[in-house]
């Protein structure tokens, strides 16, 4: 589309100048998102995102480990004396850490499915524990 100009300056965000009346917002959006300036910038973000993911992944794996060990100390008898709030919060905290592990990879790549399986197993375990406590 002529008349649309995308300038990348030294500022943090690319500035986009629109010189003429734009009839079709979809076409404009496509033009902007497919421009090499924006794609190059996105590649930088992607790299930074991977860095953050890897950092959080290590952190999350540690947390899952700690919480799993805590849950393993509860058996069908002792779980009855755990306060309801503590039980729920422990599982919710575990889920939150597994969400980070799932979000790190595309959810339908094999790794994502393995981690979803881990989540499902703990969700089922929580339901089992609630049944043992007579709450379901």
């Amino acid at each position: 589309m002529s008349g649309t100009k995308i300038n990348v300056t030294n500022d943090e965000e690319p500035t986009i100048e629109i010189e003429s009346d734009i009839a079709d917002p979809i076409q404009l959006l496509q033009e902007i998102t497919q421009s090499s300036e924006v794609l190059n910038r996105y590649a930088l973000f992607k790299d930074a995102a991977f860095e953050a993911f890897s950092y959080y992944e290590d952190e999350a794996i540690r947390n899952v480990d700690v919480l799993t060990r805590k849950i393993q100390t509860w058996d069908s008898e002792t779980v009855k004396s755990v306060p309801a709030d503590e039980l729920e919060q422990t599982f919710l905290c575990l889920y939150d850490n597994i969400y980070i592990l799932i979000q790190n990879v595309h959810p339908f790549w094999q790794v994502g499915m393995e981690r979803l399986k881990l989540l499902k197993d703990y969700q089922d375990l929580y339901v089992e524990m609630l049944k043992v406590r007579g709450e379901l």
Partner: protein
Amino acid sequence: MITQISKDNISLFEHLIPGDLIEDLLIRIDTFGLGCLRRDLDGVFDGYGALVFVKEFDENGMVENIRIKWLYVDSNRRDDSIGCELITDLFWEFGNSDVPTMTVDVPAKEEYEDLGNFLSDWHFQFAPTYSLEFELELSALKDNKYFMSIKKDTEIKGAKSLAEADAGSLKAFLRELRKKCVKSGQYIDPMLTDYKYDYFDPKLSSVVIKNGSIEGALLVHVRPSGRLEIVVFDTLESNEQAYLAHLMYKSYQAALNSNIENGRIYHETYNEKGMNLIDNIFGTHEAPLVLRGIIENNRLGISTEQWEDMKEEYWKENPDLYEYLKNR
């Protein structure tokens, strides 16, 4: 905790789902709901969030797409983990199925930005498109060039009210319509095969009857919200457009006679062809911009080992960061 929403537990989630979708959950065979339960302050489980999705079937009865219609977390208890629990449950079902795609339409409006960001975190790839839903105030038709001449007592030839046809001929018509959809590769509304008696309003729906059988119909269902939803909108042969005009007039007149002039008519099409037809009848309409998010199921392939290799390669390229994290 996630639970399937059913007749028995829907009361826990009624405050989270619009009335029209609750009706879908109870009646339609293609609409399903997941609910998230959390402990309330009094220790009792209550509905904190709900997700409603539709399984879109192809002509062979196979699911060709899962479409998320509604994802809502109680505004007083808003917490990302509730949305996460709902969406991961659907992912589990989707990932273990052969359904090729999962989609969600988010209106391109500022108030939906948080929802769009949340779904992007879960790897939905968004692209702008136009909504294929059509909604119009009934009162606006008073000035429409086709409808302005229709008054409460105008004689309309050709079309009759559905009330004048028997249930048997409607069922026969729906069977024919289904065959036509299969033949032309059009989307098949499950109400064609799973028709419940009285689902369509007999007064507001209009039909063309020839030799005792229905040849064309415009079938209207009144929603709990009062919206008049055109569920099946078709004639037997696409070249018989004149039928369609008569059917529209007849249904419009029925709405006038029922004094529901403040209602809204609603129709959802599955392709641009349907929208062009709407445009021909009502004049051009404004199609709201939506962002359609999609996840494809055929992206399976990377293994745990490959993922570990990717990470290892990354640490090799960034040894300083690795050292820093290791020593934390």
